[in-house]
């Protein structure tokens, strides 16, 4: 047991007292049991995608012609990726990146990653990206064109590479946060 010894002077009654540690140990044990039972060992996260597409024009508003923004079209083929920046229907630039997946063992399954693609995407955004200022709340748009038979893990590998490039974004309350430079959506025919 834990004890507190404050000495014993003369013939006075001993002032030594012992702290009973058993309830303390019991409390620790119960706390551990509770935390172990309620523990979440597998943590899941999410990757954003955006299906927001412009709707039909409002007939009550007058249309003012605006220059369309540059949009990155990311084509996934069997052997390579195509990074095509388009402004409206005009192709601004085009780059082919060989498909070199890095497969990481994770237990019985493999995780597909594309580190080369991530580097090229960052370089492309630095060259052509339109929303770089920290006060700019908009993100550059990326449209993903994938084959219908491509497995989902490959798409997630590409999205992971797409979201690897980050920039600072300042919010109205004065806080700043690192956000991915691209906003992604699927191409649908």
């Amino acid at each position, binding site marked *: *047991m*834990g*004890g507190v*010894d*404050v*000495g*014993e002077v003369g013939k006075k009654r001993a002032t*030594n007292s*012992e702290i009973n*540690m058993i309830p*303390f*140990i019991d409390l*620790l*044990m119960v*706390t*551990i049991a509770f*935390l*172990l039972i*309620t*523990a*979440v060992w*597998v*943590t*899941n*996260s*999410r*990757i*954003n*995608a*955006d*299906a*927001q*597409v412009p709707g039909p024009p409002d007939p009550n508003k007058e249309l003012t012609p605006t220059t369309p923004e540059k949009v990155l079209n990311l084509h996934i083929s069997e052997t390579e990726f195509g990074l095509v920046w388009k402004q409206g229907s005009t192709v601004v630039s085009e780059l082919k990146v060989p498909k070199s997946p890095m497969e*990481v063992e*994770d237990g019985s*399954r493999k*995780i*597909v*990653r594309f580190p080369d693609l991530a580097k090229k995407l960052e370089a492309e955004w630095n060259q052509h990206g339109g929303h770089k200022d920290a006060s700019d709340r908009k993100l550059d748009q990326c449209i993903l064109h*994938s*084959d*219908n*038979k*491509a*497995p*989902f*893990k490959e*798409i*997630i*590998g590409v*999205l*992971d590479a797409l*979201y*690897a490039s*980050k920039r600072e974004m300042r919010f109205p309350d004065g806080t700043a946060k690192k956000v*991915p430079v691209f906003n992604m959506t*699927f191409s*649908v*025919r």
Partner: protein
Amino acid sequence: MDHYSGSHKKDPHAHVIHQPGKRLMRAVKLKFVWNKVMGHSAKGVNANLNLVSFIDFLVVTVIFLLMSFSASGEIAVDRNVKLPKAENVEDVIDAPMVAVNGNNILVDGVPAGNTRAIEELGRLQKIDELFNMLKAKRELWKTVQPNKPFPGVCILQVDQDVPALVVKSVFQTAAFAGYPNVSFMVGKINTSK
């Protein structure tokens, strides 16, 4: 330790600093009983456990578990879905869950379509059951919270081997049903690896 020795009468600081040693059974007031339980000046048969290291271990375990405690609880993932993993991810939020495995599509655990049928058809399509269930959920949300703008977020738990055609069909159906902000649930890769 010094209960029967009276050594602190000689040393004025004895009541403050004590030698480490046995602390158990000090409450035994009678000396002959104490001698008896301690083994008559021979080696005692009673072994004392040092509780300090044990308590240290318990405290460290409690601190570790408290640090890793998640108040939001576990998010149910369909048993037949093997989630892919990614590094650049965000925290999961509270939203309707659409699970897509090799055979079925489920909304919060309720069947809402067949994956095989989409694959066999071979083209992008709107999944009517899924559309109706998501639409019903959206209308329920608007009824419950009429003054708040609808966030339009849903989370897709898609098996890593499901083809892109199925993913795009589910994605498009969710968008049609009023959920344009779609997220894919993934496992998180530790960046320290």
